[in-house]
C-alpha cells in the first residue's frame, strides 16, 4: 500500500469506528435513562406501599399500577432502540444495554411481586419489551436472572420498612419464604451466568436481614399470649396520631 492508500484505508476505519462509538454512546445514554426511570419506579413503589391505607390489596394494586406507568417511559426508549440493535448488533452492544435492562427487570418484577406475590416469568418480561411486531430485541437469560437477583435486595428493604406497619409481620414472613425460594432456584444457574455468584451472596445477605427482622418480631411478640393481629391492634391504638 502506498502512503496515501494507507491513509485512505484508515479514513474508512475512522468512519467505522466513529459510527460504532456513536451508536455505543447513544445506547449507553438510553440504558442510563432506562436505569433512572426504573430506579424512580422502584422508589415510587416503596413510597406508595408505605402509605396509610385501610385496604392493603388495593394499595398494592395502586402501587404496582403507578410503578408500571412509570416504566412505560422505558418502553418507549426500548422501542427507539430497536433499529440500533437489529441482527448481529444486539450482541455487539449487549454490554452497553445490559445495565438498563437489568434495572428495568428489577423494577418490573418488584411491581409484579407487589401485586401478585409471585415471580414474573421470562416470557412475561420479554413480552413487555416489544410490540405487535415482536420483541424490540432479545431478552437474555443472564439479564433476566441478574435483574431478579437485584429484586431480592428491594424486597429486603420492602420487608424491613414494612415490618412496623399493621400486617407487615406476616408479609415479612412471606417475603422471607419467597426470597429463600429465589435463592435456591437460582443456584443451579450460578456456574454458567457471570456475576450471578456475587449476586447470590448479596441475596444471601438480604435473606439473613429479613430473617433477623422476622425473628425480632417473633421474639418480641412471644412474651404475650395473644395472636399477632391483636398485638398489632394494641400497638396501633397507642401510636395512632
Amino acid at each position: 500500500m502506498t502512503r496515501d492508500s494507507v491513509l485512505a484505508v484508515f479514513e474508512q476505519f475512522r468512519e467505522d469506528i466513529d459510527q460504532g462509538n456513536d451508536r455505543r454512546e447513544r445506547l449507553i445514554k438510553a440504558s442510563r435513562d432506562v436505569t433512572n426511570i426504573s430506579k424512580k419506579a422502584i422508589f415510587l413503589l416503596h413510597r406508595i406501599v408505605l402509605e396509610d391505607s385501610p385496604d392493603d390489596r388495593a394499595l398494592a394494586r395502586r402501587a404496582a399500577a403507578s410503578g408500571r406507568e412509570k416504566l412505560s417511559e422505558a418502553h418507549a426508549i426500548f422501542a427507539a432502540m430497536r433499529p440500533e440493535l437489529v441482527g448481529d448488533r444486539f450482541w455487539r452492544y449487549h454490554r452497553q444495554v445490559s445495565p438498563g435492562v437489568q434495572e428495568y427487570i428489577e423494577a418490573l418484577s418488584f411491581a409484579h411481586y407487589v401485586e401478585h406475590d409471585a415471580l414474573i416469568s421470562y416470557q412475561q418480561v420479554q413480552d413487555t419489551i416489544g410490540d405487535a411486531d415482536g420483541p424490540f430485541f432479545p431478552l437474555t437469560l443472564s439479564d433476566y436472572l441478574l435483574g431478579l437477583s437485584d429484586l431480592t435486595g428491594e424486597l429486603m428493604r420492602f420487608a424491613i420498612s414494612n415490618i412496623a406497619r399493621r400486617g407487615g409481620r406476616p408479609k415479612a414472613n412471606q417475603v422471607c419464604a419467597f426470597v429463600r425460594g429465589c435463592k435456591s432456584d437460582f443456584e443451579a444457574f450460578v456456574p454458567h451466568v457471570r456475576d450471578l455468584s456475587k449476586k447470590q451472596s448479596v441475596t444471601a445477605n438480604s435473606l439473613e436481614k429479613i430473617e433477623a427482622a422476622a425473628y425480632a418480631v417473633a421474639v418480641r411478640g412471644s412474651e404475650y399470649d395473644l395472636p399477632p393481629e391483636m398485638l398489632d391492634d394494641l400497638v396501633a391504638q397507642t401510636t395512632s396520631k
Partner: protein
Amino acid sequence: MDPLDLEKLNALLEHDVGVSEKIKEQVKEFDKKVRIIVGILGKIHSTPTTSMPALLDSVSPVLLSCRDITTSIAGAIPPDQFWRWKDMWSNSIRAAVFAAALIEYLRDGSLLSLPRASEILGIQEEWKDRFSLPVEDYLHGLISMVNELSRYVVNAVTLGNYEEPMRISNFVKDIFSGFTMLNLKNDSLRRRFDSLKYDLKKIEEVVYDVSLRKLVVVKPFQ
C-alpha cells in the same frame, strides 16, 4: 527561564501551600471543638429529661464558637476557591450540623432547616464563593442525628421516659419519607440513607415494647 517569570510561578505555587496550611490549622481547631461538643452530647443518653435543658445549654456556647472557625476559614480562602478546598473540612462540618440538629430536636422537637444550620454556624451569604454549607453535608448531618436518636430512644426508656419513643418515631418517620422524595445519586449519601431503615426499625421495636406493656396511657398523640 526568565527569573521574573520563575519568581511569579513560585509565588503562585507557594501561595497555595500557604492557603492549605492555614486551613489545616483551622480544621484542627474545628475538630477539637467538634470533639468537645460530641463529647458533651454523649451524655444525653444518661441524662433525665429534667436535666436536659441544662446539658444542652452547656453545649450551645461551644457550638456558637464554631463561627470563629468558619470565619477564619472563609478568610483564608481566596475568592472563588470554595470548591478547591471544601473536602478538607467536610467531616467537621457534618459533625457540627449533626450537633446543631440534635440540639434543635431535643430542645424544640423540630427539624433544623438548611438555612438555619448555616446561620448557627455563622456562614454568611456574602462568603458564598469561599465558604458555604452544601446540601450533601447538611443531609449527612441529619442522618447522623437519626443514628444517634435510635440509640437515645433505648436509653430514654431505661431512664423511665416512656413518651419519647412515640415522639421520636414520628419525627424520624417524617425525615425518612423526606429522604425518599430526594433524588440522591448513588454515592455515600445514598448508602447512609439506606441505613436509616434500621434506625427506624429499632425505634419501632421500642415503641412496640413500650406500648404493649401499657406503660403509656392510651391517648391520641400530639
